[in-house]
């Protein structure tokens, strides 16, 4: 699925150059669940952004199924994200003026699906996260866990190949966190997704097939996990 070779990402902050990712080599297989741990500011989110094509590496290459993300034109990169990559964020990032169903539907707009098809797929996606009865609710009318379920539904409604989750349980209580992770795990297994999940939580990381640790921009892979 993914092939990263010598990937480096540098940021310019005033006159300083800040290295976020340094010389990273990584291969992520199809259907693999990779968890990435690490302290704040060590490059976890940057790695996820690079994998999702939301940012471009300063050096090195990132290939997704043989396609170089770093050199792709912006319109093609956008199209690739629309079709193949789903995102889940710590702060949910739902559009506050749209209902749960409409937030999920927003992921299908770039694909040019007709209204009837969109509604059908949205219904299936919300049903998969057990939120069919909350379809008309606005994000402000949902709990944190429900909002994250909507975000999961939004990420999965397009049947992506890859789901990139950045601290999906960071804003949730312990019970809800467990529910969300269990849901993600179930969906990962059922759909054969490639899942890259960034987390602080070691307990969550251990549920992945592989765990990596970002330290000062360098990634170290740990081989032990519960799903190997």
């Amino acid at each position, binding site marked *: 699925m993914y092939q990263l070779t010598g990937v480096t990402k540098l940021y310019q902050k005033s006159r300083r150059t800040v290295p976020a990712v340094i010389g990273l080599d990584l291969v992520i297989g199809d259907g693999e669940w990779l968890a990435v741990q690490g302290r704040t500011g060590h490059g976890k*989110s*940057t790695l996820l*952004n690079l994998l*999702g094509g*939301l*940012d471009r590496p300063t050096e090195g290459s990132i290939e997704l199924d043989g396609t170089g993300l770093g050199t792709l034109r*912006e*319109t093609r990169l*956008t*199209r*690739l*994200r*629309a*079709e193949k990559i789903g*995102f889940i*964020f710590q*702060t949910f*990032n739902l*559009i*506050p*003026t*749209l209902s749960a169903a*409409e937030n999920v*539907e*927003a*992921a299908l*707009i*770039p*694909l040019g699906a007709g*209204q009837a098809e*969109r509604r059908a797929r949205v219904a299936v996606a919300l049903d998969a996260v057990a939120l069919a009865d909350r379809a008309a609710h606005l994000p402000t009318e949902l709990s944190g866990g429900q909002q994250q379920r909507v975000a999961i539904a*939004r990420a999965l409604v397009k049947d992506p190949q890859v789901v990139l989750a950045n601290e999906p349980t960071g804003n949730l209580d312990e019970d809800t966190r467990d529910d969300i992770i269990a849901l993600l795990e179930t969906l990962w297994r059922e759909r054969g997704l490639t899942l890259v999940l960034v987390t602080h939580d070691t307990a969550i990381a251990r549920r992945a097939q592989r765990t990596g640790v970002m330290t000062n921009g360098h990634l170290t892979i740990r081989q032990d996990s519960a799903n190997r």
Partner: protein
Amino acid sequence: MFFYTYLRRELRRRMRQAIFITLGLALGVGLVVTVAAASAGANRAQSGVLSALYGVGTNVTVTGPPVMIGRFGQVKMGGLTGIQVNATGVDFCHNGKCEKASAGQSVQSVGPPYSAFSSADVTAVARLHDVSAAAGGLLLSVNAQSIPTTSGSGPSGFFFSVDGVDTGHLALSPLSAGTIISGHLFTAADAGADVAVVDSGYAASHHLTVGSAITIGNAPGVTSVRFTVIGIVRQPTAASTPDDVYIPLARAQALQTAPGPAETGEVDMIYATAASAADIPAVQHEIAALLPHDTVTTQASLAGEVTGSVKSAASLASDLGRWLAVLVLIAAFAVACLLTVAAVTRRAREFGMLKALGWRTRRIVAQVLGESLAMGIAGAAVGVGLGFAGAAIIATIAPTLHATVPGFIAPTLSGASSKAAMPRGGLNGELDPATASHTVAVPLHPPVTAGVIVLAVVLAVAGGLLAGGFGSWRIARLRPASALALVA
């Protein structure tokens, strides 16, 4: 549908800001509509004054140098030049020849105020490239005097004007500005008939009605003509001094004040109309080249002679009003742009998420432009309403405007001359004090035309799109990763 749902929800979320932007645009647009209506109303009032001077359908008038009554040998169309009262009675003197007048007799001296043009001149003007039609007119001044029955007393009398109009080109004559209130106007068949249309004021003062008779040219050695009144016309109140009697041109040309053949085919006014308003300056130039010793007058040149509050109002609306509207519009546009950019900045995280979902930049831009356009359209609707209200307020509370039209203007080769200004005077050529400048009340009716409404809508929509454009520029520069990293 998703597009409209998202647009509607977003505008509802920032309702106060949307209303603020809409009202700002509406205020600017409303001011533009009001100023345009006031300006159009003032200009229309001014045009009404001017068109009443020589008719609605005429763009250009041509007059020759004035005929100085008293210059023997230069009066081509005749005219008595003086009445002398002496010990032997009363003498009529005309072109150096005098005849005795009987006591108690009523006599008239008829003469044109301006030098004559031939019919060939009229034809030549009509054939000019940018002239769509031309017609001649013959303006005559009539001095009607009653000879005293006892010697030692001077004659008494009054003046009246006779306007010979081309019955085949009434649209180019002074009658075109009037309203027939009794009887009817001339028809083409009346070209050779002894019929007259009389001004309502003159008819009232001389107790004339349809069917009454008017005698013109009553003098020794002169064949007088009896005209039957077929209509009474009311000229616009803005007309400085409407002519008293209108008769067919050919009959005016046939009037004579001395024995001999009638001077047919000559006129002392040429009325022309241009093919379009844009051609008027060219027509004026062409006629001036064709008739270099004569005065060519347009509404624009006459406008310079009209003074009064109507002119001030037109100038105020045009200059100050226009700049005020422009300033308010600029301020409204600036506020709309700033608020839109601020809103886009606040929604950076949201737009970053949409980009992460695979939304193309132009799709997001279309969403923001749609929101701005909706506010622009709402601003246009409210602005047009405000404009109508502003125009109505002006029509209600504006003081009555006044226009002062000169009663006599000495014609020059380059200056303006008014058809209504003729050297009326005594038989010895004195000026009639009754032809002093004339002030008329002019109502102000600010019209809100379809063109102004369209302009207002275009301006408001442009304002909305401009604001959306600034927001779109901000979106285009947005990097998804940076946007998503922003703290909500």
